[in-house]
């Protein structure tokens, strides 16, 4: 499952029931003047401007600047504003959780597909899949292994189910042996999946 991330749609695929429903509701809202088609496409473009490279930059900054890291965890909104990222209203609030030697976080949304879009952009297909959402809460260690991640049995695995008004962003651990890396080199080690908690950044 984890390896079908980059699904390619080279066949013509008919929209499923949910997609048709979304389209019908969107068209009704536009017809009723709640928002315009332009508003919709502007919002889509806005949300696609953010990508996992943004999240990686934030992680690298936290690795090299301890004060920023503390602030990022305690008050993500102001820490992120200091480097030009806006989180919070109208988007949901953001919470940053730090991987340590004792605790390994994994993020899921079992109810839908809540995701820290304001730092990572739109979620990948696997994150939205029923398979990931249902299995990671019951058997997180098996799912992690499918992503190639082995977490020691004495480390607490903590699954965060983002069910409500918070979006969780995982701050991974800095790989050992990267003391001489600069911020840009560090950011290159941080993958999207490591900021969801299913993989761990590695020194190449």
């Amino acid at each position, binding site marked *: 499952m984890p390896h079908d991330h980059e699904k390619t749609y080279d066949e013509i695929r008919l929209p499923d029931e949910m997609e048709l429903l979304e389209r019908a509701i969107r068209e009704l809202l536009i017809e009723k003047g709640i928002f315009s088609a332009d508003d919709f496409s502007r919002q889509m473009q806005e949300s696609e401007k953010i990508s996992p490279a943004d999240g990686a930059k934030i992680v690298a900054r936290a690795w090299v600047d301890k004060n920023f890291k503390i602030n990022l965890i305690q008050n993500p909104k102001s820490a992120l504003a200091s480097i030009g990222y806006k989180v919070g209203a109208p988007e949901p609030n953001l919470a940053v959780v730090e991987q340590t030697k004792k605790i390994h976080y994994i993020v899921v949304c079992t*109810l839908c597909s809540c995701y820290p879009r304001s730092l990572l952009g739109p979620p990948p297909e696997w994150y939205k899949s029923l398979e990931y959402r249902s299995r990671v809460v019951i058997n*997180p260690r098996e799912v992690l292994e499918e992503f190639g991640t082995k977490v020691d*049995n004495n480390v607490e695995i903590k699954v*965060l*189910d*983002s*069910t409500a*008004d918070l979006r969780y962003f995982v701050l991974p651990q800095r790989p050992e042996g990267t003391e001489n890396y600069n911020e840009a080199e560090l950011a290159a080690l941080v993958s999207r999946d490591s900021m969801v908690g299913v993989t761990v950044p590695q020194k190449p």
Partner: protein
Amino acid sequence: MRENKIFKFNVGDEVLVLDHDPPGHIRTPSYLRGKKGIIEFKHGIFRDPEKLALGKPGLPKRALYLVKFKQKDVWDSYNGPENDTIAADIYEHWLKLYN
């Protein structure tokens, strides 16, 4: 005495998630209903999503907590280590003190 009026529960309180199944837009996952957890963090107060989903203003606002559960308390068949946990954000009206 509770330390303030906004939050009925304090960090560290053992709570039980109510085990009912009303219709509508419910943000309490069914696999956690009826399970025992512990209040880990008080997030604040938010508009009630169950009412927002009906096009209402979502009032009264509801206190929201991060509630942590032991995996073994959630799934009888959990086969990982004892200290693995799962946490979710749950609104106050879905919780009661465990005793």
